[in-house]
């Protein structure tokens, strides 16, 4: 019979139980969805790197002869190595797309991952294994012939297979059309190289120990015989993937937990209040001889089943939903062959945890009632006695409106309910402000970078081996400024990959401070704020750095800190670079002109529009996740505010009906409830602002290596968040005003017991 009662109770309190179900569902959905999505991305990448045996490092050298290999092997840490000849080429297709050719000695390190066609055959001199994304964009099929031209030599091969490479997971073209038809990669056997004497230029290595140690050993043994050593984490594709995972991790480490905490807190309040509302029924059950344990069990199961069902459904739908949302963007920008769903079991622990918390709260709520004598519980709980507070004794108290006094007393008498309501609003505020803040800051960084930092239209990538005088001549012709961009390792207690930008003071690229104002580049060394924070260094400190691949360590004093929205590291003038003993070798020329014709000595032209599109694409995945979170935050706010308003309305229903009978107009009563609701929103929102800032300042520093997000809350963010919360509240109040207007005074008066 109690089961039947439970079903009927659930029917009677259907709205509250639906909200319990939805809160458990959303909390679990966001938690498991984000956890599984991030963990799966990371694991899929790890598995892919393992399966394809991605190199731990790449040694660039023109002396990759047997003796060199012997010396590398003799380092002691080397486990495996394999040579390649990596060449830039143009495919003989429309618009001459850039294809990087890999003539490989074997297919054992950084293996080509076949999707369709024949397995890569190292004895096949006529076949090529092509980048699947490029082939799809160009509609190339297995068996098609394709020609490449590199350094004046034409190589024609038949496409044997299509697939991916772990070295090109992230390989987005920026220079021309934003799709995969403009660039790609191709793998061939060393036997496919037109000459018998293949000039290998890259040695893929697998080694034990840290890359730092390996680099030192290499430098010690082969100093001067190689041009650069690139460790895995510095490889552009690996680094871009790591950046994306880091951004996802920083979001998923905070937001789902906030969702869970709010959902649980609201769920507990609701459960507690439903049980308190059943007080007299509990008394009747007890008075009729039903044993305490049966009553306790009955009420413990009340919310438990819905919490379990809601969180289970959330845990099933969450990972699928987040995968559906993020996968199209992810698979467009990151090319890897499979998706391993992991973390399902770990994240599903949330189900028993939520269930257990629900049971515990129900247990303590019911236990406190059941232990009282039946004669006490069978009667409605006597209203709490309270004394007049200091405020209420003031003369001005009597002059305050009834609305104010009534609401003051309601809050005073229901401190814990009021507190939970405010906590719910604080939680919604944090979710909204920090979600919008993150969204806004990423856009703000974009505006900062593309409006305040970059003022050029075209960026001309300079070909290798061009002299400085030739660079100056091109710069003069194009009315541009040469700049040097290079990857560097900053060496403190840890090694950080950073960017070195060398330029003369100019109007095409501006070095900015935190207010986006221009800083003059004289002969001073600037370090970006994010890097300074990461390394814990400041103006006046000295740091060591080296250009990636070089073994020359430069000691430099930081003269100024600049703020860079993108690319973190050092900025200095060519003069200063040379003072430090490094060669000034410009890598590109920036100009305000829109250069369309080909220029001698220029490899490629990148336009500002392309850079912006590239930036948008890179941040699209994070933005999608953030937008999804904001949507769920709005839904959760709606459920929470509705639920809190409903609980408050249910508890005050008797008072409201009495006031209505006494002749108070419905509009007046709506105002009474709305005042309380708005007061809680104002308090919750105000308290939520600094907490949101705190959450943002926890997320932003960890949001990737390159992008610099400054924790801040804009007035727009505040206004939008407040409008969302207040709109939800207004909708709720309109709904409750209809309920007040339709209150059946006769029915309610019959049921009134005090």
């Amino acid at each position, binding site marked *: 019979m109690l089961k039947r009662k439970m079903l009927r109770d659930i029917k009677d309190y259907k709205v509250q139980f639906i909200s319990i179900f939805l809160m458990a569902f959303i909390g679990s959905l966001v938690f498991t969805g984000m956890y599984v999505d991030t963990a799966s991305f990371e694991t899929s990448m790890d598995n892919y790197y393992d399966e394809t045996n991605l190199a731990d490092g790449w040694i660039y050298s023109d002396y990759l002869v047997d003796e060199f290999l012997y010396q590398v092997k003799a380092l002691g840490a080397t486990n495996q190595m394999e040579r390649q000849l990596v060449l830039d080429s143009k495919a003989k297709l429309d618009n001459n797309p850039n294809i990087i050719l890999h003539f490989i000695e074997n297919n054992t390190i950084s293996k080509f991952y076949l999707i369709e066609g024949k397995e890569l055959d190292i004895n096949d001199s006529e076949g090529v294994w092509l980048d699947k994304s490029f082939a799809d964009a160009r509609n190339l099929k297995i068996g098609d012939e394709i020609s490449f031209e590199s350094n004046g030599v034409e190589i024609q091969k038949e496409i044997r297979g299509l697939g991916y490479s772990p070295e090109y997971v992230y390989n987005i073209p920026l220079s021309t059309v934003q799709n995969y038809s403009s660039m790609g990669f191709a793998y061939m056997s060393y036997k496919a190289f037109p000459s018998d004497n293949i000039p290998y230029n890259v040695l893929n290595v697998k080694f034990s120990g840290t890359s730092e140690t390996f680099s030192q050993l290499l430098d010690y043994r082969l100093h001067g015989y190689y041009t650069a050593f690139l460790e895995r984490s510095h490889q552009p594709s690996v680094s871009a993937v790591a950046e994306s995972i880091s951004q996802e991790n920083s979001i998923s480490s905070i937001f789902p937990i906030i969702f869970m905490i709010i959902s649980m807190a609201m769920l507990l309040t609701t459960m507690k209040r439903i049980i308190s509302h059943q007080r007299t029924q509990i008394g009747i059950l007890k008075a009729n001889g039903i044993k305490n344990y049966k009553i306790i069990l009955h009420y413990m199961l009340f919310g438990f089943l819905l919490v379990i069902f809601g969180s289970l459904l959330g845990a099933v739908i969450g990972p699928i939903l987040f995968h559906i949302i993020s996968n199209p963007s992810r698979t467009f920008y990151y090319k890897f062959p499979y998706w391993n769903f992991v973390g399902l079991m770990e994240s599903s622990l949330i189900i028993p945890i939520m269930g257990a918390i629900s049971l515990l709260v129900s247990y303590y709520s019911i236990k406190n009632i059941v232990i009282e004598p039946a004669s006490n519980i069978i009667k409605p709980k006597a209203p709490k006695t309270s004394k007049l507070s200091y405020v209420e004794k003031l003369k001005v108290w009597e002059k305050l409106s009834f609305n104010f006094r009534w609401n003051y007393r309601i809050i005073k*008498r229901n401190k814990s309910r009021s507190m939970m309501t405010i906590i719910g609003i604080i939680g919604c505020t944090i979710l909204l402000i920090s979600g919008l803040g993150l969204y806004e800051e990423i856009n703000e960084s974009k505006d900062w970078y593309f409006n305040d930092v970059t003022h050029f239209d075209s960026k001309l990538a300079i070909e290798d081996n061009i002299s400085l005088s030739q660079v100056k001549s091109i710069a003069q012709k194009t009315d541009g400024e040469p700049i040097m961009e290079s990857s560097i390792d900053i060496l403190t207690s840890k090694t950080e990959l950073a960017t070195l930008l060398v330029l003369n003071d100019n109007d095409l690229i501006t070095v900015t401070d935190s207010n986006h104002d221009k800083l003059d580049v004289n002969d001073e060394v600037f370090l970006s704020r994010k890097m300074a924070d990461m390394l814990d260094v400041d103006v006046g400190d000295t740091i060591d750095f080296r250009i990636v691949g070089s073994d020359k360590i430069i000691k430099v004093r930081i003269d100024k800190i600049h703020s860079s929205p993108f690319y973190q590291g050092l900025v200095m003038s060519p003069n200063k670079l040379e003072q430090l003993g490094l060669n000034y070798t410009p890598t590109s020329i920036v100009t305000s002109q829109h250069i369309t014709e080909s220029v001698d000595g220029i490899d490629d032209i990148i336009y500002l529009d392309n850079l912006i599109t590239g930036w948008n694409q890179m941040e699209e995945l994070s933005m999608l996740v953030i937008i999804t979170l904001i949507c769920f935050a709005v839904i959760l706010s709606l459920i929470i505010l509705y639920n809190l308003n409903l609980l408050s309305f249910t508890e005050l229903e008797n008072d409201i009906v009495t006031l209505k009978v006494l002749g*108070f107009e419905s509009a007046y009563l709506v105002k009474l409830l709305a005042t309380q609701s708005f007061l809680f929103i104002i308090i919750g929102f105000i308290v939520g602002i600094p907490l949101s800032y705190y959450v943002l300042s926890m997320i932003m520093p960890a949001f990737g290596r390159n992008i610099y997000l400054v924790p801040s809350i804009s007035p727009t963010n505040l206004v939008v968040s407040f409008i969302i919360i207040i709109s939800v509240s207004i909708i709720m109040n309109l709904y409750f005003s209809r309920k007040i207007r339709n209150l059946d005074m006769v029915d309610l008066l019959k049921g*009134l017991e005090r």
Partner: protein
Amino acid sequence: MNTIIEFKNVTKVYKSGDSFLKAVDNVNFKINRGELVVILGPSGAGKSTLLNLLGGLDSVTSGEIIVNGSHIESFDDYQLTNYRARNVGFVFQFFNLIPNLTALENIELMKDVVDFDIDGLKILESVGLKNHANQFPSQLSGGEQQRVSIARAIAKKPTILLCDEPTGSLDSKTGVLILNLLQEMSTDYNTTVILITHNSILSKAADKTIKIKNGKVEEVTVNLMPKKFTELNY
């Protein structure tokens, strides 16, 4: 004596699923200004329905209710709210005080629905509770709470005071004090007091008794020599 309330062929039918319940069936009666009227009847006879109809809490299925010359059966929600605010005072069995307001504030609350000033303390004094002005309902006894409830009802200076089993939750001694207070309202302030009860002894103190049975008026008796409630043997 002038008629203040008139029920003409009033019927109230409740629908419950497919069945219909006639709670009030073609009721006719008149009540004069300043009378103390007892509506008497067994449980389920339709007494409270009559009171609800008269108080503007419920609408008639058919018939007319004329109060002070106005047909309240044709009032819309807004007019009914005004009618309750200006003409009717309610005293309930379970007091229905606002628990978050002190005794005085429960009375002064009525300032928000009438357009004249209310001296809450004076009214509390009239019901003998001046010293309890700053106490909350939960700090008062049942009898005291009911006195506050009466004080709240009369604060609006209503023409009609509707009392639904006002002594139902009180011991007999306190009950007599409350009834006496209601009688004073009728005699001293010319307020029409309508008292719903199933206790037939109370009719001896009423100016008029309307007996209800099965939703119909069984008998209307006029008492030319009403006793005081304090003189009755309970």
